[in-house]
Structures are given as structure tokens and as C-alpha cells.
């Protein structure tokens, strides 16, 4: 009986993975063909052949603009979804989302401070460091918010999701105030880069960032292998998780670091893109259930697909203008969040 059931569930769990993979590949191809410049088969051939002669026309657009942007969207989507899945597992609640809890605004706040204060202080940052300075400070901001959430919310309102979300609201407001102060102090040029954070955009994509993000994702995925099953034990409650042999404190720190790295990278390079971390894990839970071992990798796939869709829409709806992708994900995600709330209310 056990054998047949396991076999059955394996079938169920493997099929969504392959279907999602296929969907993602189709999505990448479709997104690559959409845009102001038409892409033909010969353009694909041209970039695949990799001749020494410089690319031209459609092939140039495909290789230097569209493909890095698409892959960047895919990976940022995966990173956001994974950080959402991890946050939800950590706080034992499907409404815990790095955006709602203030983790992403903490990162954005640190990044904004860096932009304004650094320029104000007149320190010249080497170009090579610029890519890494913002992720590093954004990471620090995300870590700070995570630890504040972990200790303050636990201390003020132990084990209550309302308390956690309210702490998130307070932290969001605080971050918004600091970002507002930065906008007030900023020069025109700084203001333009700041607006970018509050709206979120993938327009900064290039091959270097894409490669760096890929490495970060591979590392996160590797760390995940050993984390996911112990995260399942967290669902029993922290005391019971310790009883079955999980070192909860170490696990919590590791998960928080991972979430902060993923959010820090995403925020530093694309600003605040909300709701992917909330929506993607939820869709996966509906598909295959809440087992973190399946949830985490599949949420990455779904997050990739969602952000790819949103970004393609952002690029193509108002050609030649471009709408910030954060607006699309919020339009998609906020109603979804309300539906989730309503469902939870009915459920309990």
C-alpha cells in the first residue's frame, strides 16, 4: 500500500516539474521573439554559430539586449520565489513574504542610503566595485530587517502572524521614510536611480550580472539540498523541531542569510519587485503540496515563469516605452494576496 502510494505521488510530483520546465523554455523563446525589433530564425542561427564578425540587426538585439534581459528576469524571478518560499517556511505561515515583511524595502533603504551618502561624501568608488557595492549594502539591509523581524516580532508578539505582518508594516514605513529622506536630499541624477528602486525594473540586465546571479543561484540551490527537509520539521513548531533533532537556531540563521542574499541581489540590481515571493510558492503548494523538498525548487520555476511574463508585458505593452515591471507584479499580486487572506479566513 505504501509502495503504490509513493509511486503514485512520485508520478504526480515529477510531471509538474517537467511541464513547468517546458513552459519556461517556451516562455523564453516567445519572450525573445517579442519586442520592438522582429527576431527571425536566421538571427538565432547567427548567435548560435558564434562567428567572429560582429552581430547586426536582429541578432545584435537578441544577443546583447533581449537574451540577457530574459535570462535575468528568469533568474531574479527564481531568486524572489525561493526567498518567499524560505521566508514562509521559516515563519510557518503562507502570508510571510519578504516584500510584505519589509525585507526588500530594508535592502532598498540601504541601497538608497549608499547612493546618496556616498555621492554626498565625495568618495570615488572604482567601477569594478560598483556592481558589488549595492548588492553588499542591500544584503546588509536585508539581513538587518530579517534579524529585527526574527527577534522583535518573536519578542513582541510570539507566534502570531498578525504581529509579524504588523512589524513588517512598521519596518516598511521606516524604510519608506528613509528612502523619502534620501529622495529629498538627492541630486537630479541620484533621483533617477532612486526612482528605479521604488518601481523595480529589469532594464539594467547584461551578461555580467546574469552570470553573477547564476552563480549565486547555484550556490543557493546547493545550500538548499540539505536545508529543505529540516525546514519541513519547522512546521511542527520550533520546540517539536528541536525534539526531533533539528538545531533550530542554526537553521534559522542559515535560512535568514540565504533569504537576505537572494533579496539583496534582486533589490540591488532590479529594485523592488513585489509579490513574486508570495504568489509563486502558493501556486506550487496548490500543485504539489507543502513539502519543502518539492516546494523550493518548483517555486523557483514558477517564479521564473511569472517574472518572465510580467517583464515581457512590461517591455511590450507600450512599445517603444517601457513600464516598470514592479507595477505589473503588484497589479497581479495584490489582488492575489487579498484572495489568499479571504481563503485563510474561511479555512480557520
Amino acid at each position: 500500500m505504501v509502495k503504490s502510494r509513493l509511486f503514485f505521488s512520485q508520478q504526480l510530483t515529477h510531471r509538474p516539474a517537467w511541464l513547468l520546465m517546458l513552459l519556461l523554455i517556451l516562455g523564453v523563446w516567445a519572450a525573445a521573439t517579442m519586442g520592438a525589433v522582429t527576431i527571425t530564425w536566421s538571427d538565432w542561427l547567427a548567435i548560435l554559430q558564434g562567428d567572429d564578425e560582429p552581430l547586426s540587426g536582429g541578432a545584435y538585439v537578441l544577443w546583447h539586449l533581449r537574451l540577457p534581459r530574459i535570462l535575468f528576469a528568469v533568474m531574479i524571478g527564481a531568486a524572489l520565489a525561493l526567498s518567499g518560499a524560505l521566508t514562509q517556511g521559516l515563519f510557518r505561515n503562507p502570508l510571510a513574504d519578504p516584500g510584505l515583511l519589509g525585507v526588500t524595502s530594508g535592502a532598498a533603504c540601504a541601497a538608497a542610503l549608499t547612493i546618496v551618502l556616498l555621492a554626498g561624501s565625495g568618495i570615488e568608488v572604482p567601477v569594478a566595485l560598483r556592481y558589488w557595492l549595492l548588492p553588499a549594502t542591500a544584503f546588509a539591509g536585508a539581513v538587518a530587517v530579517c534579524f529585527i523581524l526574527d527577534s522583535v516580532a518573536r519578542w513582541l508578539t510570539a507566534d502570531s502572524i498578525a504581529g509579524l505582518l504588523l512589524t513588517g508594516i512598521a519596518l516598511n514605513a521606516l524604510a519608506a521614510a528613509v528612502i523619502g529622506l534620501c529622495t529629498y536630499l538627492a541630486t537630479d541624477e541620484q533621483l533617477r536611480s532612486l526612482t528605479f528602486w521604488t518601481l523595480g525594473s529589469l532594464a539594467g540586465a547584461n551578461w555580467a550580472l546574469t552570470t553573477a546571479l547564476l552563480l549565486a543561484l547555484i550556490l543557493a540551490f546547493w545550500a538548499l539540498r540539505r536545508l529543505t527537509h529540516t525546514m519541513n520539521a519547522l512546521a511542527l513548531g520550533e520546540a517539536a523541531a528541536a525534539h526531533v533533532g533539528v538545531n533550530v537556531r542554526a537553521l534559522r540563521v542559515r535560512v535568514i542569510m540565504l533569504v537576505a542574499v537572494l533579496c539583496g541581489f534582486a533589490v540591488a540590481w532590479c529594485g523592488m519587485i513585489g509579490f513574486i515571493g508570495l504568489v509563486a510558492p502558493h501556486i506550487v503548494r496548490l500543485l504539489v503540496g507543502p513539502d519543502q523538498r518539492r516546494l523550493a525548487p518548483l517555486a523557483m520555476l514558477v517564479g521564473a515563469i511569472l517574472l518572465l511574463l510580467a517583464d515581457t508585458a512590461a517591455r511590450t505593452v507600450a512599445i517603444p516605452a517601457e513600464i516598470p515591471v514592479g507595477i505589473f507584479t503588484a497589479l497581479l499580486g495584490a489582488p492575489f494576496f487579498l484572495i489568499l487572506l479571504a481563503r485563510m479566513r474561511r479555512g480557520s
Partner: protein
Amino acid sequence: MSHLHTSATALLSFNQVTVALGKRQFGPFTLSIQPGEQVAILGPSGAGKSTLLKLLARELTPASGQAQFEQRSLHDWSLAELSRRRAILPQSHEVAFGLPVDLVIGLGRVARTYDPQLSSIVQQAAEQASAVHLLGRRFDTLSGGEKARVQMARVFAQLWDVEQGLLLVDEPLAALDPGLQFSLMEAIYTFASKRGHAILAILHDINQALQGFERLIFIKHGAMVGDYQTPHVTLPLLEALYEVRLASAVTETGEVIVAPSLKQVAAASLQIVR
């Protein structure tokens, strides 16, 4: 305080263990549990029973005193090692996210990195806890009694292939109907005695303690006030513990039943004869 054992053979021993929670002092607790022993902890609400259990489970760190498990300081054990020697059946049964029942039971063995027998042990533990029919369901769709069964199966799975371990039980049955309480307690006895596990249970039901456990520990005002072999427990001792008049009766089959006395008779003169 008649219970003296040499601590060399003890499974778990506490020597003058104290802990402070906020302004409240608990302890000193001095006790030792032998392998295979069945001990009930009794006491009024808020007396510190759960605090003692948390100390025994290593959820709390003692402020002073020595706590030893299998001749090693309790705090030298890693959580993973400890989880292969002792399990805790919790008071509350909630599990987040509606995990499937099979997974919840299997989580009892999450600390084992290599566990080829997992699925067969999950199945057998579910059978032992009469929870086989719940396999394949979501935990959050279960009733209170069914959740208790699944949590019990999880604890069974944790100590399934262990001998002479320790089972800590925290009033798990308080909210369940009497028939279910009885069958779940039976399942715990059967599981533990087959493997020589010691049971240490916090109980609210005096009769369950008197009938099912060989030794009773009394907790009051945050400290141990008694440690008796069950036959030595008298009605006045219990009355003093709970500060209530008790009456006892003997059934046709010779069982002694204790209940709060509704008439304020001088119940103190009655002795429990077992």
C-alpha cells in the same frame, strides 16, 4: 521521598536542578529515571509540571544543578543524538501548512541522514497508533483525536528502532474523550514496554496515574513535594497536593477510583488500598 536509586544505572538523573523563568524560581528538582520505568508527574495547574518536562527535554537550560542523560551531561548531547534516544509527545498538535500525514510521521526521523527503512517504519508506527487510515490525508483536515494519533505515530517512528529510550509525554490526552484517551494510552504502553522505553508523563487524571504508572512525582509551587511508588500514595497525600477534598471508591473489579468529594465529608480517613 522514598525513591532512592543509584544514579550509575539511571537513564536520566537530575541533581538539584533549578531554573528561573521571569521572576519565578523552579526547583530544586532531584530525581532519577530508570530504564523502562513508568512515571507520572502530578500537580495542580501552574505548579511547574511543564517546566520540569521542558528541563527534562532540554528545552530549558538549568540555572544550577546537574542534569545527566545516560551518564553524560544532558547539554553535551547534540540535538540529533538526543533525538535518537528520547522523544516528546507534545501537548498541542498544530502543524503549519497542512503537511501530508505520512510526511509528519516521517519527520520523527528527520535527524537520521541515512534511513532506508523510513517508509516501512512510518507504516508500522501508523499501525501502532491506529492511524493507518489517516495516511495520505492532510494534517490540517484531521479532527483533534486524529491529530493526536498522528503525533503519536510520529513519536513512535522516532524511537521505533531504539531500545531503552525515554518517552516524555505532556498531557497529550487532556482534551480527548475518555474512550480515546484509554486507547491512546494503551498504544503508548504497548509501544514503550516492547522496547523497554521509560515513560515520563504529565497527567491531569489522578486515576490514570494510579492505575497505569508505577511511580508518581508530585509538583507544587514550582518544586518537587513528593516522589512515591504508586502503592504508597495515600488519599491525604493527594488531597494535600491538590488542596481539595477527595473521595475514593472501589469498583467490582477491585480498581480504586478517586474523585473530588462533592460532600465535604472527612475523606482524609479513607486510605487507598491497592
